[in-house]
């Protein structure tokens, strides 16, 4: 077990009229080397899970165990060792990028984690290449970039220090279809070739469905269902919590209702093969 949430409750503005509960008695485990997805509508508490793993906030009750570290309101010694292994990419890149140029932004984590890198420049351009940006972006100002480019830079600024766990909060916001496909490929590469643990916090079921190994459905700070990716194919469950079925699942279900038997798949190429076989 890599990350363990033990009965975690997180509240803000305690003892004030604006008191708000983001997470309520949440318990789960995140296993190593898998893609774990937290799906849920807005205000379901997904982002707070990412922040708790990264120890940017502390739980009001309960504890979060991340490797050998425990986040339970007490001061964590050597917290940089934890954060070096957990990369958190926020939903809004503007919350994350605060340096003037792309190069400074990318080098920030490397400098403060005291990484032993002789070739910082090469590492920067490689991180940019991974997210699909050319080397010429290094000298650009952050404020001159579009939202999509900022999103990619924020991902690169985390990938550069090679974390074991990568948390992506709403990774598809602001991305086009081709960019989403590229991100999917990158996530699969990180998982399969480098054995990274990926945590997706999203409401985009189309994006998450083919990637997910384990899924948790969240609603108003609680986990309503857990299991493998098949919880995303449960129409009643998804409708009940304001989420939509993945398009591929919708298509297969519609075909099955019309008497065309197509087995459930998450790959569009497999689906085409199935349709072709049935047409024959």
């Amino acid at each position: 077990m890599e990350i363990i949430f033990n009965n975690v409750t997180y509240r803000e503005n305690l003892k004030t009229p604006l008191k708000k509960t983001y997470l309520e008695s949440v318990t789960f485990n995140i296993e190593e080397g898998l893609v774990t997805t937290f799906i849920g509508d807005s205000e379901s508490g997904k982002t707070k899970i990412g922040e708790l793993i990264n120890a940017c906030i502390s739980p009001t009750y309960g504890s979060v165990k991340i490797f050998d570290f425990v986040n339970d309101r007490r001061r964590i010694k050597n917290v940089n060792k934890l954060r070096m292994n957990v990369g958190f990419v926020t939903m809004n890149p503007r919350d994350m990028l605060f340096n003037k140029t792309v190069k400074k932004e990318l080098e920030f984590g490397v400098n403060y984690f005291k990484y032993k890198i002789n070739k910082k420049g090469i590492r920067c351009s490689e991180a940019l290449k991974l997210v699909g940006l050319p080397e010429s972006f290094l000298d650009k100002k952050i404020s001159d970039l579009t939202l999509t480019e900022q999103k990619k830079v924020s991902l690169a600024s985390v990938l550069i220090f090679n974390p074991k766990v990568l948390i992506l909060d709403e990774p598809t916001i602001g991305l086009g279809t081709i960019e989403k496909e590229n991100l999917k490929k990158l996530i699969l590469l990180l998982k399969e070739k480098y054995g990274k643990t990926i945590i997706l916090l999203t409401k985009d079921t189309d994006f998450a469905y083919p990637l997910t190994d384990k899924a948790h459905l969240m609603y108003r700070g609680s986990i309503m269902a857990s299991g493998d990716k098949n919880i995303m194919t449960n129409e009643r469950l998804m409708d009940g919590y304001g989420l939509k079925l993945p398009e591929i699942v919708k298509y297969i279900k519609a075909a099955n209702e019309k008497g065309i038997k197509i087995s459930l798949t998450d790959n569009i190429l497999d689906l085409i093969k199935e349709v072709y076989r049935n047409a024959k």
Partner: protein
Amino acid sequence: MQSNKYFGSFYPVNSSIHRLNSVVKLICLFLFLIPMIGSVSLKLHVVVLFFIVMLMYTSNVPLRFYFNMLYGLRYIYIIILFALASKGLSMENAVVILIKISAFIEYLALIFYTTSPSELKYGIEKSLSPFNLFNLNLGRLSNKIVGLINFFPLLLTTEQEVLKSASARGLDYYHGDILSKIYAVVSSFKNTLRLTFKKISDIKFASELRMYSVTKFRTNLRTNKVKFFDIMLLLVHFLFILYYIREVGLI
């Protein structure tokens, strides 16, 4: 980490103080200054302080927010008291001066916590309207005043965002000792300041996009009516002034 989130900025809850007319609030602040600056009566100062605490309680803003503000300025009180004690200040006078400073700070905090920036802008514009005689651009002036008032809370919010992001990438603020906290704040201050100015220019741009103009009057939509509680608040302030006039011996 969360306690300072609303430091000096509007606290969005519903209360009778929040519903007061912003123009009346500012007029009351000016009226409040008259006895506070002139009077030396301990009785009046204790009554005024009690009245402010009552207003603070009815504003539904957590009292610790007000006291945090007061606590943050503790060194300034000590310096002022030392300076005055060196000139032979009596105990009663020291208490009066302490009440004067804290009442003024808490009154300002009360206005900032209970008045939204747009209401404040409206209030400043209206209360400065007598200066229209000199053909001044009051819209621009009130815009600048509100901008100045909102600068510090915006700076704090931006700082929180930058520190959170910097902590996630190695420049820790939340789990370090006091020295590492200072180091984190100082290291990120340049970026925080740059981002705050950028946010201010973004807000200006967004207001212009929504047809905001400092030279044109805006629709009031009957939200800023003077009601019963506004008149009562004004009356109480006039009572304070009356007491002060009697103390001076004009009546």
